[in-house]
């Protein structure tokens, strides 16, 4: 019963928010354009949140995703412009994209290695890499952004009227959801987060799995960075400051437990969309970006409080 409440509640809240905004602002909110707009804006943090879901289910946390977002953009744009000139060819742009994705994967791998090989706590390890990656992103071009005016496809391109970034987002959701539910890697992710000692006893290769999880998280951050860069047609060394907190909030609102072992991709998507629609709604009804922080804060606290409340009840019954 409580489990049902816990699983349905975030989804119910999302529907409620959409319903309220639809009634309040039918003209500006309830339009296909606005919905596609929200989805497109969600795609960057949403893709990162999908990776973060694996990390959080495994009982970890990755604070470096915001910095890595910037670093991947700088690396990709640097490669494109540096090797291909101001107007790089399509081949150069593909190559640059590969560099960005690779930077993400390596960035995640480094965090994972610090956690598994040096046995650092994920919070501490990624607090370190957060600073490290931001620093590198800033130092690369003396803190200057890089313009990639021809890198437009991911940000602006559409397919049958739907933005490419939304397609990518959906593909990532489907793939990651399948990996989490239907593969041994996904199962091991849950097991490690629930009880790492028990997982080790049961023959789960904990270190290898964790490396995979953080690398996957980094790779998805790289992909998100490419979309973000393409949307602004520039790589910003200050991109994604504080992104990790928004992303973690989305995952937690979606029902994942920071102590590990619990969470779903569906929940994370609902959490991401809930934050996005709240932001969007606030903007439409004229709440300032500063005041939006208050709304988001209240929602996070409420979500976690409800979660704790239903969990406490469930524990008592057992």
């Amino acid at each position, binding site marked *: 019963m409580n489990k049902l409440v816990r699983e349905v509640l975030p989804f119910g809240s999302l529907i409620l928010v959409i319903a309220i905004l639809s009634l309040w602002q039918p003209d500006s909110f309830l339009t296909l354009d606005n919905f596609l707009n929200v989805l497109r804006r969600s795609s960057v943090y949403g893709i990162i949140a999908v990776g973060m879901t694996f990390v959080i289910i495994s009982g970890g946390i990755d604070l470096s995703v915001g910095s890595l977002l910037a670093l991947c953009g700088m690396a990709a744009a640097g490669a494109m412009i540096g090797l291909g000139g101001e107007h790089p060819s399509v081949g150069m742009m593909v190559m640059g994209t590969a560099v960005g994705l690779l930077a993400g994967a390596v960035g995640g791998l480094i965090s994972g290695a610090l956690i598994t090989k040096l046995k650092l706590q994920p919070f501490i390890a990624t607090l370190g890499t957060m600073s490290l990656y931001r620093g590198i992103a800033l130092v690369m071009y003396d803190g200057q952004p890089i313009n990639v005016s021809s890198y437009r496809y991911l940000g602006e391109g559409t397919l049958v009227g739907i933005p490419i970034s939304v397609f990518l987002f959906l593909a990532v959701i489907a793939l990651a959801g399948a990996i989490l*539910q*239907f*593969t*041994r*890697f*996904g*199962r091991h992710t*849950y*097991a490690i987060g*629930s*009880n790492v*000692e*028990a*997982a*080790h*006893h*049961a*023959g*789960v*290769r904990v270190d290898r799995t964790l490396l995979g999880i953080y690398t996957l998280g980094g790779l998805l951050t790289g992909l998100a960075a490419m979309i973000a860069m393409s949307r602004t047609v520039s790589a910003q060394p200050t991109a994604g400051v504080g992104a990790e907190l928004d992303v973690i909030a989305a995952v937690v609102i979606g029902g994942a437990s920071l102590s590990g*072992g*619990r969470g779903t991709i569906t929940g994370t998507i609902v959490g991401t969309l809930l934050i996005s629609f709240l932001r969007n709604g606030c903007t439409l009804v004229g709440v300032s970006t500063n005041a939006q922080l208050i709304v988001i804060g209240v929602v996070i606290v409420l979500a976690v409080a409800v979660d704790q409340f239903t969990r406490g009840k469930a524990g008592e019954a*057992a």
Partner: protein
Amino acid sequence: MALCRLIESARFALEMQGIGKSFGPVKALDDVTLRVLPGTVHALAGENGAGKSTLMKILAGVHQPDTGAIVREGRTCSWKHPSDSLADGVAMIYQELSLASDLTIAENVWLGIEPRGALPGTYSKKRMLADTCALAERHGFDVDPNRKVETLSASTCQIVEVLKALARNAEILVMDEPTSSCGRHEVAILLEMVKKLSRAGTTIIYISHRLEEVVEIAEYITVLRDGRAVHTGPMEGLQISDIVKHMVGRDLEDYFPKRKVEVGSTALKVSGLSSGAVEDISFDLRWGEIVGVAGLVGAGRTELARVLCGLDPSIGGVVEIDGKNVKIATPADALAYGVMYITEDRKRTGLCLELPAAWNMTLPCLVELGMKHILHLGRENTIADETAGKLSLKWPGPGAPAGALSGGNQQKLLLGRALIAGSRLWVLDEPTRGIDIAAKVDIYELIGRMAAEGKAVLIISSDLPELFGITDRILVMRRGRLVADLVTSETAPEAVMQLAAVAEGRT
């Protein structure tokens, strides 16, 4: 008339009259009466689910009874909160110890009720130490109040728990499985403590699965079964078999299955095996054989299992399976050789409690099930269901979280792993600790059946009757070394105890 009853009640330190309690449609307790005479040790026995813990929680003020009354020294009590029952002098000593490990014994004993110091908001350390010593002395205990709790043995921790209750003027102590985490030597210390307390006038309600202990110390016993008190009376003249009969409601011819030993070729040969905790271990184990490992807690039995199963690194020695040299460096290696280790600590190292029971069962065997990368959830559930049937495992369904199952069923989940993986070599560490008798019997039968099928079983146990009931041979360990390799049928339990305990001068 009413006065007579009142006077009658006053004879008892505590009387629970006709207690009934339901949780939704489930009747946990039905008309249970428990009368405890002052200064006695009163045992409360019953299988898991018989209602012991509900009755205890009512005593602790956690639950309130639907019907019936609790009478303490002629006065009817209604406890709404644990502090209410404590105020009336009833204290719980829980299975999971609730001590602050960084604090000293004295600080724990007086936690929250520290003697006031000279200045407001301070406490007097001197008085606290003196009070602790006086309290301990009065009850015949010898503890150093300045020692930190984290350095204490399990039995001393229990003593601290008891002192803590006594410091709060408790007259009735309810002890829930106080010996469950103790070795034989520690158990003796604890039982001695209970006797001392009782002699000093403290009333004790003693709950334990270990009926040998109950027979040793209890003066009265009440047996619960299915929420009813099926037997109550003095302990005198009562045998373990009588108690078991009351608990399960039928005659148990024997806990242990009779089987014919037909051992095969050598399954496992260990020569000179050493790790950080065990030294120069050599023994062998043949297919179809059940070999026990006896020893005190800390003798290195679990450590032997750990190094055998790739959980601790080996620093020397040779392990052969079926005559072939094997190198087991990780648990995954062990599984690949068909070696399944079932931990002694289900909650900490065995199960992922919030994950579905079926997931817990299949976790180490996904590769064997042909799910090296991609899972087949339907097939997984079918296999888990079938295995549950084979083990007479009771669960709401394969999707129920492992943590919602009883201890016996959790243990069966772990044993199910070995069945699913088709393990040839079972290494069981205290497989029946803290579980009810019906589940124990199921597990003994399973072990017997597996041996009959030709599997080799190594079983570590602190329960000597159990080792003598099911094993063919018993290895005895002491201080990290193997000191004896005995044929069970030619050995007396006393000999094993002697071998395990010789030169054991430490506490």
